[in-house]
């Protein structure tokens, strides 16, 4: 077998790979951080490299710049010695918000009904600690909590390192099926372990005092974390290995703590409505709710729970990554330089953007996208199908290979394209159609919805009037809406500190009915009807007040 050397510039890392291996594989071996959010299928373009020296097959060359060929590392085979330079930012940006939860007592701040401190793990000593964690597809967050008094002593957040291998749940399940399950499990376990150390150091706590863990996350993430086979989740019908897992041992996951420190996980309602949502609904007090409430978790998947104390319906709709700034040409996470709001004066044609951290516009984040779309729509710069109208002033119009756009930076390089708006409209239509479909399942005599709880990455950054303006959420009085910053994490913290809450989470999940939207013939119809600003029939935005 022939081997070739592959060197990465400017890091200088290098390795030898077998003839025919991809540059991506070389990067893995060399330890060069290269991202492939699509899981190495040549779709995301994150692993673009410049070939500085050496030859790559001509059919893999996407284009040339200053004479250097550019190619996707994940698809390009190595047939000779190469020197390559990664072109995209490989490091994940640092998470902005720490959360500011240290010093808080979850039982006082978050409990939906009075809960007594009764930790899920036996705790005898003064310094005993517990960990509550939210394992998200995109972000990981954890709280280090003192069990004796239920006070948060440390916290940490990080991006899920699995992102580098696949941005969405499906691509990670596919990777696991193809033999990367151990690697995916190791990367997320390792990330959590270092977050624990980080949180403990900040709180001057001793990780050896950790007595137990309560973890919530979507079902695929929990499968990957615990090493269960996730492949059944993405099949039809969805058949996860389990909806609720027995406690695992922290030591088996490589997490610190006195042995045996158990790791409890929140139970899931269905393949696509995981423990994160169940924990969130319990945190929002669904199991003790007198009337009907609606819980909407906005993310790559929009998860929806509709119900009350007696029963609930839950579904997940695939919204795509638009709410997280993904799949949007100039989309980005809510980071420095992201547009997070806009104001247009329709009279003068002036547009003012609000940018996180001030300064130069680098892109648009999910909440900014919603605010911007609503503002553009209200100013009449886009029509109800999300396309630019003649009323958009010429100085804000840009035209490029992706069609027409609204320029957000003076040079027009940062812009909101019509097709980005189309992605957003599809995303909001998927969520709203899900809400309508669940409400439809309740039938004609359905009780009116008395409150709406919004959770998800936006948290309270979501511009609620804008979300209602574009028809993402039902047009109910703003006073009925409330936010839960991170229902999953908060529910996990409550479960850690209260056996009663953990037990109630389990009993509530047995009263939840998982609705697979693919089984509802009306869903597509609702989706098309919602694929309009704000809706094809705006009266439909008022739920429970018609028919």
């Amino acid at each position, binding site marked *: 077998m022939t081997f070739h050397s592959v060197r990465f510039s400017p890091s200088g890392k290098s390795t030898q790979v077998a003839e025919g291996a991809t540059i991506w594989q070389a990067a893995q071996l060399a330890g060069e951080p290269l991202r492939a959010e699509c899981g190495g299928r040549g779709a995301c373009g994150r692993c673009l490299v410049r070939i500085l020296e050496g030859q790559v097959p001509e059919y893999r060359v996407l284009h040339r710049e200053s004479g250097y060929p550019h190619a996707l590392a994940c698809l390009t085979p190595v047939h000779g010695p190469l020197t390559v330079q990664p072109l995209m930012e490989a490091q994940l940006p640092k998470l902005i918000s720490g959360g500011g939860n240290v010093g808080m007592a979850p039982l006082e701040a978050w409990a939906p009904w009075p809960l007594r401190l009764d930790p899920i793990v036996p705790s005898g000593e003064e310094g005993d600690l517990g960990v509550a964690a939210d394992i998200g597809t995109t972000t990981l967050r954890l709280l280090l909590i003192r069990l004796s008094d239920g006070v948060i002593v440390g916290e940490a957040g990080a991006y899920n390192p699995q992102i580098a291998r696949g941005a969405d749940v499906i691509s990670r399940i596919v990777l696991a099926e193809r033999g990367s399950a151990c690697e995916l499990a190791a990367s997320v376990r390792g990330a959590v372990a270092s977050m624990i150390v980080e949180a403990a150091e900040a709180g001057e706590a001793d990780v050896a005092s950790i007595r137990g863990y309560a973890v919530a996350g979507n079902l695929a993430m929990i499968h990957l974390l615990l090493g269960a086979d996730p492949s059944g989740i993405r099949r039809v019908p969805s058949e996860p290995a389990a909806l609720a897992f027995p406690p695992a041992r922290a030591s088996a996951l490589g997490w610190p703590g006195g042995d045996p420190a158990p790791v409890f996980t929140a139970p899931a309602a269905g393949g696509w409505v995981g423990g994160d949502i169940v924990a969130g609904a319990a945190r929002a007090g669904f199991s003790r709710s007198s009337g009907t409430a609606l819980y909407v978790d906005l993310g790559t998947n929009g998860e929806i729970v509709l119900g009350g104390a007696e029963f609930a319906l839950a579904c997940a709709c695939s919204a795509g990554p638009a709410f997280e700034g993904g799949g949007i040409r100039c989309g980005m996470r809510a980071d420095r330089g992201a547009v997070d709001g806009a104001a247009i004066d329709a009279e003068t044609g002036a547009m003012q953007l609000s940018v996180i951290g001030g300064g130069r516009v680098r892109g648009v984040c999910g909440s900014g996208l919603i605010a911007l779309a609503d503002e553009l729509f209200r100013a009449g710069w886009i*029509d*109800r*199908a999300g396309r630019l109208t003649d009323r958009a002033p010429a100085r804000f119009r840009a035209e490029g290979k992706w069609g027409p756009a609204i320029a957000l930076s003076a040079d027009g390089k940062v812009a909101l394209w019509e097709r980005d708006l189309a992605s957003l409209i599809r995303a909001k239509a998927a969520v709203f159609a899900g809400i309508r479909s669940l409400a439809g399942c309740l039938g004609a005599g359905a009780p009116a919805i008395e409150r709406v709880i919004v959770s998800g990455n936006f948290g309270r950054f979501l511009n609620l009037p804008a979300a209602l303006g574009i028809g993402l959420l039902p047009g109910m009085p703003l006073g009925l809406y409330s936010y839960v910053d991170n229902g999953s994490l908060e529910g996990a913290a409550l479960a850690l500190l209260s056996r009663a809450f953990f037990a109630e989470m389990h009993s509530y999940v047995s009263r939840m009915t998982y609705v697979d939207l693919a089984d509802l013939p009306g869903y597509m*119809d609702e989706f*098309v*009807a919602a*694929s*309009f600003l704000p809706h*094809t*029939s705006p009266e439909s935005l008022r739920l429970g007040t018609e028919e």
Partner: protein
Amino acid sequence: MSLELKPKKWAGAIRAVTLGSGSRKPVTVGGGNGLPLHTFEGVFPHRPAFALEITDVDPARWAEAARGPWDGVLGSPAAAARRALREFGADLVMLHLCGTHPDRGNRTPEEAAADVRAVLDAVDVPLIVKGPGAGPRQNDVLARVAEEAKGEGLALHSACQEDYKTLAAVAVAYGHILVAESPIDMNIAKQLNILLADASVDMNRTLIDPLTGGLGYGLEYTYSVMERIRLAALGGDAMLNAPMICLAGEEAWKAKEAKASSRQEPRWGDERRRGIHWELATALALIEAGAEVLVLRHPETLARLRTQLDCWFGDPAPGGDSCR
């Protein structure tokens, strides 16, 4: 025991849309306030109107049986229009400018405008003009045609959700009716009408083409979408209450069952009768679903549909087309 029918009163009604103005003898369609053919509970001031399809160039793809009646005038739109009117008794004529398609003759917008002018000079009924299909070419052709026939109240076929702005502007500027086409989807039909209304198109000057399949090729799907459009319209939805136009002939004659020759399919029987039956069954179903303008290919289908309408609505009152 006697059965007492309780007529259903609807909140809404279908808009009455008048095709043709200027030098045309106008034809009004729509205006009914009940479900299609429910003459026992609604008032239908205008019967469905029938158009025959003529083309700018010889339609080589037409089945032999559909070409027969047009022998000698295929590709001569003015002569075909005269025959459609005088011999076949059409209410309207639809000129399909298929020859302007880049792959089927690539005729210029100027030539198309000349064809339309010739048909306008030859007959005095309203004219539906169908372009080569959505895209820049259709916009160019229909814009030029609209300009040429300014004030004649043509029905321009058609605007779609992806590309409606040019034709909306043209229809408004030159005083024409705009046909709004949607892909067998009630929501998109409504969305397009909302977009057109936002683009200052008068909703009393539009028709909905819900798009149809021929018998056996998705007709039932169209049927239920049309039924839902009609129910919404009668329920008071102002963005879905335009009259509907269906290209029944084109779709029916696409079916293998309509166009296969007796030589190819000896067991299917006489191809002429078979094709006409196929078109007739398609058109009847569409009328039952609420179509107000039917575009047909074979004159015998038209004649037989008229007989059927007389059965449903009674003999036409002399000097008017009032049904009740």
